[in-house]
């Protein structure tokens, strides 16, 4: 299929999978923000999610496919671009390209590494077993797995909080270019909307950064505790 090898075809696939991931990141944040309601909030949310096993697995498969396409094409396209560009200017001044736009491959790969860590931490309970391994057996008063306790104990550790915050900065950089980029790639623009794309991208990614970082922040500062 020519579409999957084409410069624009792959760009559109990067864009669509990127949009899927952005929707996930937004929904994931809305779900996670139930932690501000205390143990009752997030434990109920976690239980609801896991009470839908077929849906959970369909969702996981779709996300896995989307992530795989996004990463494989991201690497492939970057390698091609490096081959096309001799990178041999003695002096080069960029007029429009930003730090974020030039580092998409690196912020992307760092986010992928973080996702692996995040799964090992909260889903598979491999890292910090002293906190999380017991969670499955560690039920709250309503016999729900005590996700609240796991999250609070984790983020009380400075190193974990810093890793999460740093990853969210990577996500911010990636999305501050990625959001306006997917709008341009899909061609969802006209002369009035296009100048706003950059601002929309920065505002949305900025809000996500503040939102996500606020969780370890309120825990490490002791505003939210067990």
């Amino acid at each position, binding site marked *: 299929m*020519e*579409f999957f090898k*084409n*410069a*624009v*075809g*792959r*760009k*559109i696939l990067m864009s669509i999978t990127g949009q899927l991931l952005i929707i996930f990141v937004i929904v994931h944040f809305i779900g996670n923000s139930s932690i501000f309601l205390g143990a009752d909030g997030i434990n109920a949310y976690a239980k609801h999610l896991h009470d839908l096993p077929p849906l959970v697995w369909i969702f996981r498969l779709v996300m896995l496919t989307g992530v795989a396409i996004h990463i494989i094409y991201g690497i492939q*396209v970057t390698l*091609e*671009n490096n*081959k*096309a*560009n*001799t*990178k*041999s*200017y*003695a*002096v*080069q*001044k*960029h*007029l*429009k*390209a*930003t730090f974020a*736009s*030039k580092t*998409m491959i690196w912020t992307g790969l760092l986010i992928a590494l973080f996702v692996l860590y995040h799964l090992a931490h909260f889903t598979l309970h491999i890292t910090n077993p002293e906190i999380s391994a017991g969670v499955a057996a560690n039920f709250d008063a309503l016999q729900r797995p005590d996700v609240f306790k796991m999250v609070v104990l984790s983020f009380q550790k400075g190193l974990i909080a810093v890793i999460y915050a740093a990853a969210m900065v990577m996500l911010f950089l990636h999305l501050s*270019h990625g959001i*306006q*980029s997917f709008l*341009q*790639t*899909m*061609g*969802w*623009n006209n*002369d009035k909307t*296009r100048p706003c794309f950059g601002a929309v991208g920065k505002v949305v990614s900025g809000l996500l950064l503040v939102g996500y970082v606020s969780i370890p922040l309120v825990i490490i500062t002791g505003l939210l505790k067990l």
Partner: protein
Amino acid sequence: MSEHKTMTLTLNVWRQKGPNDPGKFETYTAKGITEHHSFLEMIDVVNEDLIKSGKEPIVFDHDCREGICGMCSQVINGVPHGGQERTTVCQLHMRKFKDGDTIFIEPWRATAFPIIKDLVVDRSAYDTIIQAGGYTSCHTGGVPDGNTLPIPKQDADYAMDAAECIGCGACAAACPNSSAMLFTSAKVAQLAALPQGQVEAAARVKNMVETMQACGFGNCSNHYECQAACPKGIDVKFIARLNREYLKAQFK
């Protein structure tokens, strides 16, 4: 006769004997340059001196010297065409520089634009892209009556904005990915906006993008360096249009 204040500049110029020569920077002093010299005229002055002292002059491309031919493939101080908005090298004047300035002059650098000599690059890859579909096939019989094919004013303007491209190569030279997407999209968008372009629209966009890739240009990742470097101010909205045209072509 009025007296001009003259400038003395230090030039670091890329010298390369041929396509396979590794090439290197040579330093020259440009003396007696007035603010009225264009950038190319300034190199002419330096070349006069080089010729008089028995050295080989700096080889550079130029044709019209009025900003419309797109031959002068020079990156000046890190920016294609020198960084003055909507200006080609021949229309860049020395009044933009100060006495004592050091200037770096390099050719376009992209795998698809191999260097022929010094500041001259082979830009024929752009012709190859045009040959892949940047035209309309039409009967060349009798001249049609005026207004038999009405085209709305805004469509004509849009097409003209895209048609302003002079194919100089600054977009690919500026692009961190060496992508020729702005050039390709300008032609695709121009013809897609006009009734004459509809017949071959789907094949055109597919063939031109494939040819762009085959020529060794990179993929567009929306840095927008191209628009900033373009001496004709071609808008990246044409790239978005190309993307739409490409999607549309999948269903034809």
